[in-house]
């Protein structure tokens, strides 16, 4: 069955494929996102972003703080950005944690927060008519957080509980080792959860927590994002009213630069009664929406290891050596990792599969992909995006990603424009630049004492 004809008309299709944006006088859709991104900064530097979207009275309210575990530069403080996310639910002088909970409950919102390498995100999705209340309680804790040492020590146990629940998975264990092996100097060397000994020591870090808040919970780190039934002027006015007095900070973290990796590195977890696992992790550049390498790596991630890829069909379906094959390439502020993951039926096949994966990468380096293949990947990525954004929370999530890696919500549209401009030569150039043995960390899970894959 042919699937080619419509690829040619893709650019026309994309323009009309999502539901029509509402009439909005504050801005126009400019790119793949079929809704306007209305953006205006407060004087203190906090960015205020609104995406009007018809959503039956629901609004997603997100605060994106560009602080994550990469800011944990001091010895013994790993896991602190995440721990601090927990502390943000412990109340202020004006609104106690009990009152905060009661208000949240009365709003009836789905609210939570999460932390990763580059960011901490606080979010709630709920009744758009309660938007002002959302602004009020969030601004209060971002500007006036005040918790007791009792609450601080108590919350540390919850973080330990989170570590404990995650620790059962061998994937969590290998992830910790991969980051440690791949980054000797940069703070990407530890996971967001942090080292166990630092997690255990958290109750003793009350004073440091005050320093952390003072350093990072400042408007210059913040983007306030509202998606849904909301007017941009109303959102900006609420931001001004509640976050306008938030004072700028002065701290500039010095994130150590990772030295150039010059040899293949290894990480291994010994584990019986678990499917053997191989991950090849290559160093890649930090996010830049206009950087063709970034877009090309994302295309390769989708192109070379999907169910459509010949290598997938060979290793998973025909030879049935693998239970699964996939790749991941997350955008990050600083250079991080492009990973190819394979889950095995038998440990004996690990070297063979590693060699096959390398052959595939070498092929990308030696021969340009066809125009047709490239267009199919672009189609996949754009339609995938269009299919996803069917509710305010998902639109907010997509924008949040680009905000935390770049600080700019419009990076979403810019990035997709960059991707659209890619040529087969761009794909080849990126493969040549990044898929080299000296940028590689090989990680394994198997019953053996050592990984054994070269």
């Amino acid at each position, binding site marked *: *069955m042919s*699937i080619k004809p*419509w*690829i040619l008309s893709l650019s026309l*299709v994309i323009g009309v*494929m*999502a*539901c*029509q944006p509402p009439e909005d006088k504050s801005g126009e859709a400019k790119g793949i996102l079929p809704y306007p991104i209305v953006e205006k900064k407060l004087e203190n530097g906090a960015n205020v972003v609104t995406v009007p979207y*018809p959503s039956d009275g*629901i609004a997603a309210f997100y605060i994106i703080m560009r602080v994550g575990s990469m800011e944990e530069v001091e010895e013994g403080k790993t896991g602190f950005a995440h721990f601090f996310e927990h502390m943000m*639910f412990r109340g202020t002088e004006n609104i106690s944690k009990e009152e905060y*909970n*009661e208000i*949240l*409950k*009365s*709003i*009836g*919102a*789905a609210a939570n927060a999460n932390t990763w390498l580059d960011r901490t995100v606080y979010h709630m*999705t*709920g009744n758009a008519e309660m938007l002002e209340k959302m602004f009020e309680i969030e601004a209060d804790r971002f500007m006036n957080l005040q918790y*007791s*040492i009792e609450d601080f*020590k*108590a*919350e540390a*146990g*919850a973080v*330990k*509980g*989170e570590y*404990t*629940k995650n620790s*059962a*998975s*061998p994937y969590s264990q290998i992830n910790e080792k991969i980051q440690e092996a791949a980054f000797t100097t940069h703070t990407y060397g530890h996971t967001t959860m942090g080292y166990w000994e630092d997690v255990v020591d958290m*109750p003793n870090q009350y004073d440091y927590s005050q320093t952390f808040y003072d350093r990072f919970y400042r408007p210059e780190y913040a983007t306030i994002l509202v998606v849904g039934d909301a007017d941009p002027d109303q959102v900006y006015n609420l931001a001004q009213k509640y976050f306008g007095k938030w004072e700028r900070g002065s701290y500039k973290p010095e994130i150590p630069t990772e030295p150039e990796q010059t040899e293949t590195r290894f990480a291994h977890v010994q*584990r019986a*009664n*678990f*499917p053997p696992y191989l991950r090849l992790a290559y160093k890649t550049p930090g996010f830049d929406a206009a950087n063709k390498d970034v877009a090309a790596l994302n295309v390769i991630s989708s192109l070379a290891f999907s*169910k*459509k890829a010949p290598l997938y*069909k060979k290793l998973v*379906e025909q030879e*049935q050596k693998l*239970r*699964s094959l996939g790749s991941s390439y997350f955008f990050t502020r600083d250079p991080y990792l492009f990973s190819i993951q394979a889950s095995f*039926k038998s440990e004996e096949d690990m070297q063979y599969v590693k060699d096959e994966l390398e052959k595939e990468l070498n092929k990308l380096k030696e021969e340009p992909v066809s125009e047709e293949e490239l267009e*199919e990947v672009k*189609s*996949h*990525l754009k*339609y995938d995006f*269009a*299919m996803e954004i069917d*509710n*305010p929370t998902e639109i907010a999530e997509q924008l949040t990603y680009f905000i935390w890696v770049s600080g700019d919500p419009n990076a979403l549209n810019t990035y997709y424009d960059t991707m659209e401009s890619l040529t087969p030569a761009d794909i080849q150039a990126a493969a040549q630049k990044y898929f080299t043995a000296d940028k590689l960390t090989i990680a394994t899970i198997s019953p053996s004492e050592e990984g054994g894959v070269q």
Partner: protein
Amino acid sequence: MMTKNLLTTVGMVALMITQALAINVTELQKPELNKVVIKIRFENGSISDPKGKEGLTYLTSELINEIGTQNISKSEIDDMVYTMAIERNSFTDKEITTFTYQVHVDFLDQFYPVIRGLLLEPNFTTEDFERVKSNQLNYVDQLIRASSDEEYSKMALEDLLFRGTNYQHMTAGNTEGVSAITLEDVKEHFKNYFTRNNVSLGIAGNYSPDFLNKVVADLEQLPDVTPEIPEPATADMPDGIEVEIVSKENALGSAIYGGYPLDITRASDEFAALMVANSYIGEHRKSYGQLYQKIREQRSMNYGDYTYIEWYEKGGWFQLPLTGTPRHSNYFSLWIRPVQIKDQLVDQYPELEGINVGHAHFALRMALSQIDKLIQNGMSQEDFEVTRQFLRSYIKLYVQTPAKELGFLMDSKFYGRENYIREMDALLAQLTVDDVNAAIKKYLQVNNMYITIITDDSEAEPLAESLKSNMPSPMSYSNALKEILSPEILAEDEKVKEYQLNISEVTVVPDEETFELQ
């Protein structure tokens, strides 16, 4: 929006078809959308698995999205799915199997023959069968025991709660069952259990009446076999609290799940009252619940503590409920996320040298004593009001996407409702605190239940002894925490450590032996 039988929504051709077929159709027209969501649902889940072939329905449904048709190869389908960014999945629960496809309107006509072909002309091959079966076997053999102790404890609870019934085994089956399944079993099962007589259709988004007619006409072509679906089993109420401790190597904590059969479902109007009570004591992934407050917030014992009045699919991953899991057989459950074991506590805090067990016994006592307190005292008017207000807003967030909205509508029909979310909202609006307190008295209890605990092998026996003897289980705080806890909390601990649990049986099972007893 419409959710009614096709008889009333489409033209004459479809009228004739549906009169002949009586295929139930749930419609959710959203012409402004760029896609169409198609849910093809069969009243047939893991309870239909033959004895000794546990996992057959799951494997059959998984295979449907891992094969080709008589005219379109699997490889061609995978290429289309990729390039058109089709979202598809198969989901088998105890009583229902659902195939969901989300297709962009640009590709609906091109992709629909794939959906049709997979259902009407599936090409089951040995290669695809072996591959999918191998992964399923790996899941029931290894992954469930080694990936998340929380999910493991939840599955182990169902195994205990429904032991000896068709509700016992995981939907993915068990080692013996999956091992015994042949390709012929799958072909036969598909022919006899996925038929025009137990199918229903859900469709949402931007589709035409002609398209809907075509799908209905195609579903008519499914085999005209009346599947022999067994009656869903119910669990017996245990006499006392029966605890099964699963002992495994290198567990950092004790993961706890508990539950007892509950004689109420979404079909009952009383469910709204129970929703309020449940939300108050243990709303899923919310900090407002009493259990969360007592165990996590005040005492720092774990990551969260919740209660449920119906099955909650993949609660460790999702904050809002999924669809496709309607069940006739229901139970109340309690989820205490992993708490610390003795070895870890002593390792971290030398001052705790000499303690007998970690926090599991105390956590269980705290949870049950809180539920007990709710039963004795009921909810206050104030707590009732704020919890009801929360729920009336919160349940609307369950249906943010067209796929979720459609799924909830289809689940509604299973329970004899038209629109569960809307009807619950109306019931909540009429509710009084007395209604809730009556439901609490009627449905909640703490004396008879099953508990499963996944824990480290160093902790299993001491914990079993502690539970069996019902001896006091004092909380073991680090000095750093103890010195700052309020006198009220410490005084409450003194009471809770002696709270009598109606323990009737405690067994310790090595992890490799779980899911084996029938």
